[in-house]
């Protein structure tokens, strides 16, 4: 298991080297196009984390195990952080291509709404004292929140005119990416997913220990 962590360390070094030295730049964007190897994987991990949070929320409502609720919280937090990072990298891209960090483009607006929705998830959790009630309400909220994700991430930005570059795979133009760029992009997606898995497992282990210690303290 430890070997996997060190392999991930080396993998990400190779991804960085690949992103800056191996992959060619996109026409018209120059070196700025290299942000794709970080911006898209960050957004992908955000959506993945929200999805896992939703699955665990469903499990909690089915089985009533607080363990599932804790996994859902861990994933929602990680999702929020990664979405925030995707927003920041997107804003940097916007600054150098559109001239401003933020201009309420449909993409930016939809990701902002997504951040607000998951921000509300944590406000809801902090507002309810009773553990069972909090877990139940947060689980329902998490499921409803995830229903909005495909609309906000995939549908709305495609319906309205946007300055955002075309998706890599689109219905109109099919698949469009240089093979070297695609190799680095895929490696980055795998690497970021690995980082997410690692952080999620660390966070979960921390919560388990904390719950045990709190339980022991309460029992005297």
């Amino acid at each position: 298991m430890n070997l996997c962590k060190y392999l991930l360390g080396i993998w990400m070094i190779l991804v960085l080297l690949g992103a800056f030295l191996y992959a060619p730049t996109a026409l018209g964007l120059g070196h700025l196009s290299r942000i794709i190897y970080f911006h898209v994987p960050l957004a992908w991990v955000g959506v993945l984390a929200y999805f896992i949070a939703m699955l665990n929320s469903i499990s909690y409502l089915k089985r009533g195990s607080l363990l599932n609720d804790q996994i859902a919280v861990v994933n929602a937090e990680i999702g929020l952080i990664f979405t925030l990072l995707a927003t920041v990298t997107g804003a940097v891209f916007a600054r150098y291509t559109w001239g401003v960090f933020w201009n309420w483009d449909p993409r930016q607006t939809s990701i902002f709404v997504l951040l607000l929705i998951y921000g509300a998830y944590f406000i809801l959790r902090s507002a309810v004292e009773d553990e069972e009630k909090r877990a139940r309400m947060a689980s329902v909220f998490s499921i409803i929140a995830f229903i909005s994700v495909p609309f906000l991430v995939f549908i709305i930005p495609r319906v309205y005119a946007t300055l955002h570059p075309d998706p890599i795979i689109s219905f109109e133009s099919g698949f469009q990416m240089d093979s070297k760029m695609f190799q680095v992009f895929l490696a980055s997606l795998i690497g970021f997913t690995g980082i997410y898995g690692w952080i999620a497992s660390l966070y979960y282990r921390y919560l388990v220990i904390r719950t045990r210690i709190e339980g022991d303290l309460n029992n005297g």
Partner: protein
Amino acid sequence: MADIYIVLIVSLISWAGIFFYLIRLDLCLKKMEKRYEE
């Protein structure tokens, strides 16, 4: 072109920082888990 090397070096240093922080966190948790089991 030199700018891209600066960004690369900063990125590598940042990743090294994150990586060793996560490794350290992992070891701390392992120690706590072991102590708790004992």
